[in-house]
């Protein structure tokens, strides 16, 4: 009997699946749910640009059958800003990791959120730097063991939900890879919403993070997510924390505010009108 094709076949690049991610890695779930969200929204796949940075999740742009770009470490958002500003008709999605987006890339994240530039940023947060072997990162929990915190992490992690909300994102949500359907619904909402939208997805990393923190098997992380997650929609982002006792998930911000490319186009139009009326350029070079 001939093997049937998986329902997401057309959404992945020919010959690129199976992907390179480890057994139990959450990135595969982020990929699948994202593709299902696109399918359910019936997006024109010719009008989407996927941008990713460096890290295991960064490889995702090579798996999706759409225009895609894999940038230098930390810079997918800056690149995406250049794309969106020149082609506001395209949907731009940045999918990257906790280190890429919030350590080296932190500056670009907060400014793009501040500008409220229309794009969706999905962070696959696996609490460490998986690709380089499991070093600590800005989301590693206090006391966690990583290769660069062999005695336990003494740094506080970011509350990414709070950071995103504080920077000005108009939609902020956090889910884990076990909340597949809620995650997909969030992705759909974020993609449809006009403005800077952010979703944090807590993701298992059994080979690097899990193994060093008493969760060596893939199911161990999923059990952690399932048992400690609590859905608290619309609470104060400051209180949407990840602590040893609970993982607060849900949708925390869903507001409206003027979007950057709209303001830009408005301004260009008014300059156009002024030029038509006055018949001369506003500035003569000096």
């Amino acid at each position, binding site marked *: 009997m001939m093997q049937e094709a998986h329902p997401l076949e057309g959404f992945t690049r020919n010959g690129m699946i199976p992907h390179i991610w480890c057994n139990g890695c959450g990135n595969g779930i982020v990929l699948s749910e994202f593709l299902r969200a696109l399918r359910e929204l019936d997006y024109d796949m010719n009008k989407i640009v996927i941008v990713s940075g460096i890290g295991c999740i960064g490889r995702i742009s090579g798996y999706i059958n759409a225009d895609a*770009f894999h940038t230098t470490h930390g810079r997918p958002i*800056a690149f995406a800003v*250049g794309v969106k500003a*020149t082609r506001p008709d395209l949907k731009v999605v940045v999918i990257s990791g906790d280190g890429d987006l919030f350590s080296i890339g932190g500056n670009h994240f907060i400014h793009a959120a501040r500008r409220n530039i229309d794009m969706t940023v999905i962070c696959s947060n696996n609490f460490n730097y998986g690709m380089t072997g499991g070093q600590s990162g800005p989301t590693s929990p206090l006391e966690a063991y990583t290769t660069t915190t062999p005695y336990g992490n003494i740094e506080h992690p970011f509350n990414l939900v709070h950071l995103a909300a504080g920077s000005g994102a108009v939609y902020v949500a956090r889910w884990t890879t076990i909340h597949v359907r809620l995650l997909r619904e969030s992705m759909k909402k974020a993609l449809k919403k006009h403005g800077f939208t952010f979703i944090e997805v807590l993701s298992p990393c059994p080979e690097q993070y899990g193994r060093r923190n008493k969760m060596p098997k893939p199911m161990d992380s999923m059990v952690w997510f399932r048992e400690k997650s609590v859905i608290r929609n619309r609470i104060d982002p400051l209180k949407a924390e990840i602590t040893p006792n609970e993982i607060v998930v849900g949708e925390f911000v869903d507001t409206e505010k003027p979007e950057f490319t709209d303001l830009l186009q408005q301004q260009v139009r008014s*300059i156009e009108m002024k030029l038509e009326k006055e018949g001369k*350029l506003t500035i003569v*070079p*000096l």
Partner: protein
Amino acid sequence: MRRDVITGVYFALGDVACAEGAIAAGCRFFAGYPITPATEVAEHMARRLPEVGGVYLQMEDEIASMAAVIGASYSGVKSMTSTSGPGFSLMQENIGLAVMTETPCVIVNVMRGGPSTGQPTKTGQQDVMQAKWGSHGDYEVIAFAPSSVQEMFDLTIQAFNVSEEFRCPAFIMADEIVGHLRERLNIPRPEDVDLTERKRPKQLPQSYAPFRPDQDLIPPMACFGEGYRFYATGLTHDETGHPQTDSADEQTKLVQRLCDKIRRNRDRIVKVERILLDDAKVCVIAYGSVARSALAAVNRARRLGLKVGLLRLITLWPFAEKEVEEVADDVDWMIVAEMNCGQIVREVERRANHRKVTFLSRLGEDPHTPEEILAHIRRVA
């Protein structure tokens, strides 16, 4: 009323001429960060780009600026940024990304005194080697050194043309003097501005490979939103764009092609100006604002009966190896005057008989005076 090519004669600032050149060349995206002495390029672009339907973005830093330039270029728009030394250093990693993804883009470095924060308001030529070797990895770029306000305009158009043709970053290595000088600027009629556009794919998406080169070693470039659904990465990749991080063959093929596509065409790309060299026994080599003093010195030397000429470098990279060799064969002495501790002079020494080459350094504030250069000419002539 044409808004992009504003034909006419102006008394313009160098930085502004550069911005107007970019707009005349079709640049419709600028991302940058303010830095002395290049801020005027950004400010002028901020005023003018909306008038021509373009986008000006002030990014949070120079790293973001370069990333946004690559993003915009891949969206099909001619893009540029401008900076000075400190920002140029920050941009290097993404310049490497532009090289690796064969992104047409123009980077203007209005050089100032370095290293580090240095002397922001004083000129220098200390970054010229950095333009070629600044990013990690091995690659070729094209860099121009304007000597006048008119060249700030003209060479910026040329930089866009070569970057589009060869799908590589092109640099305008200006210096603070030329950037902040006001001189006569002649903006030609639109029909006299020759523009080059990037090669577009003729194939349909199914048979298109984003990095499959044509005979000229340059792949046609698809852009986002056109249905090609291509993949580009900074990782070593094959013709389909997919990563090839294990294959020595793919690495060799790719890196070699990225260099060869420019090296093979160096005769067309390299530009020099030869002044009074036919019977010269001494040749002065200079570029940028120093070339202006060098020209004055050479003219005065000629009036004193000395057989001196000037080889002015218009492109810095690829280096004018052949042109320097030709002159070296005919002259007894070459004097290289630069505002640094010795950068282009090393390239000259490689090609000329090194005993024939002397170096005139000048660091700080102003370029060499014509008198300084003349004194040196008289010593050797």
